[in-house]
């Protein structure tokens, strides 16, 4: 990616070189189908076992609680539709939040059309759900609570342990979309009473197109994608061995160096936040100040529009993202920013900077240098801004 400074690690990460190296033999040499009988397929089989172990270990699960999927989206779809289908005799009520990823929200909306009822919990101005409101939302026929671990736009981390506790006390299953949390957060599915947890490799320097669903032993979950007997009959389709290997390696690397990595990220993050708020008037931080992913900065600039901001940053060689409607191509700006109470125009003018392993202090300084001028230029152009 040449000279550009990449500040969009929440969108996707480059696959680490060590990870690619680990994957390569499984394309051309150890390419066998793990279901095959002959001994050369042992290598594929063992590689899948190793990756499963690495992933299980990272979240304190057992190996046979990890099921590979094609990514975070499929994991979310499977978790939610799977519980809906397998527990419908108990009830048809699901609780989620207004700030979930679309993989969760659109799945819930789909289920509403199938006759399920969904409660979308509000969040406060920091993006936190209320544990009290959650308790009150639970009914006789509630079968699932699905609340994301950490938000992909504003980085807010939910009180997962409390939610798990409430779910357990009420005999309701708890699914969490941990796609953004995995790799930087310490996750313990047993301690937190998590029944289902979605992951995606490409957010933690692993390859795209591979993810996993943790399914706690004892959970009734049939296959969502039907066919062969792979993944102990729960996820059909020839195993994506190279990607699985890459996922395992990536998650291992992430957790081996988690604390050091986080320390660096948090330093850069906090510098960015305080200096941007300082240098740019009419700006505000979105998301919780401290209950926040180590790599997430999300700031709204009044009077300007996100896509224009992104293009100007791009012209300066900076890659970032926004919650603007123009960027998303959808009718409304980010549902997350709206849910934390931002009015339409402010949601429009948001900038998300997500940090990663290639970022340096110089990158941050450079951004801090160019950003205020760009905001000023766009404000000069804006009919909303009168100074």
């Amino acid at each position, binding site marked *: 990616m040449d000279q550009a400074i990449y500040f969009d690690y929440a969108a996707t990460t480059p696959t680490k070189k060590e990870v690619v190296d680990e994957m390569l033999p499984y394309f051309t040499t150890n390419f066998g189908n793990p279901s095959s009988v002959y001994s050369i397929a042992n290598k594929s089989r063992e590689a899948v076992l190793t990756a499963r172990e690495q992933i299980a270990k990272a979240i304190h699960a057992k190996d046979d609680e990890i099921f590979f999927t094609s990514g975070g989206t499929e994991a979310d779809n499977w978790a939610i539709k799977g519980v809906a289908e397998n527990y419908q005799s108990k009830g048809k009520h699901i609780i989620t939040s207004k700030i979930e990823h679309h993989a969760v929200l659109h799945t819930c909306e789909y289920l509403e059309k199938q006759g399920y009822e969904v409660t979308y919990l509000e969040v406060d101005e920091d993006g936190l759900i209320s544990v009290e409101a959650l308790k009150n939302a639970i009914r006789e026929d509630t079968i699932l609570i699905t609340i994301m671990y950490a938000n992909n736009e504003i980085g807010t981390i939910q009180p997962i342990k409390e939610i798990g506790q409430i779910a357990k006390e009420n005999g309701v299953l708890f699914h969490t979309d941990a796609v953004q949390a995995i790799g930087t957060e310490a996750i313990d599915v047993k301690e937190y009473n998590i029944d289902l947890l979605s992951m995606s490799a490409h957010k933690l320097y692993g390859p795209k197109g591979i993810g996993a669903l943790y399914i706690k032993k004892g959970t009734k979950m049939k296959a969502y994608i039907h066919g062969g007997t792979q993944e102990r009959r729960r996820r059909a389709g020839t195993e994506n061995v190279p990607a699985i290997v890459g996922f395992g390696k990536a998650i291992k690397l992430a957790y081996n160096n988690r604390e050091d990595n986080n320390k660096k990220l948090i330093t850069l993050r906090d510098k960015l936040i305080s200096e941007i708020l300082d240098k740019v008037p009419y700006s505000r931080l979105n998301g919780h100040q401290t209950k926040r992913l180590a790599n997430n900065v999300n700031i709204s600039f009044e009077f300007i529009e996100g*896509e*224009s901001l992104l*293009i100007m940053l791009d012209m300066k060689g900076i890659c970032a993202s926004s919650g*603007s*409607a*123009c960027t998303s191509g959808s009718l409304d700006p980010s549902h997350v920013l709206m849910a934390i109470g931002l009015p339409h125009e402010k949601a429009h003018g948001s900038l998300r900077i997500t940090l990663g392993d290639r970022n340096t202090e110089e990158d941050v300084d450079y951004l801090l240098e160019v950003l205020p001028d760009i905001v000023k230029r766009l404000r000069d*152009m804006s009919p909303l801004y009168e100074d």
Partner: protein
Amino acid sequence: MYTEKVMDHFSNPRNMGELENASGVGTVGNAKCGDIMRIFLDIDNNIVKDVRFKTFGCGAAVATSSIATELVKGKTVEDALKVTNKAVMDALDGLPKAKVHCSLLAEEAIHAALWDYAQKNNIEIEGLEPPKEDIHEHEEEDDE
């Protein structure tokens, strides 16, 4: 994503700003994405002598505003009215499908400014309709 022309007009917008005593000012908004465009016209002797714009919107919205000001400048009121979103897009060598509506914003902002001019001067411009509340194209259906 955008053509070179779009990028040129986005990075060096022409006629950006305001006109103090404009003959007509038009502001339009687009519910689809919450964007706003304002056009200032200076009309003398039925000719668009000067023009300025301010825009809150995407790259395409900025570029269409900019090129639209160039397209109407020097034209008669009647010819300015004929600057369609199609003309704006052509002048920019095209826009991505998802951004067609931004060019409509430009067409409608010109119309709104001309309407304001007509109202202020109590004249009627043939073919000019009162500005719409909300500018958006007919959505293409997801093909099913």
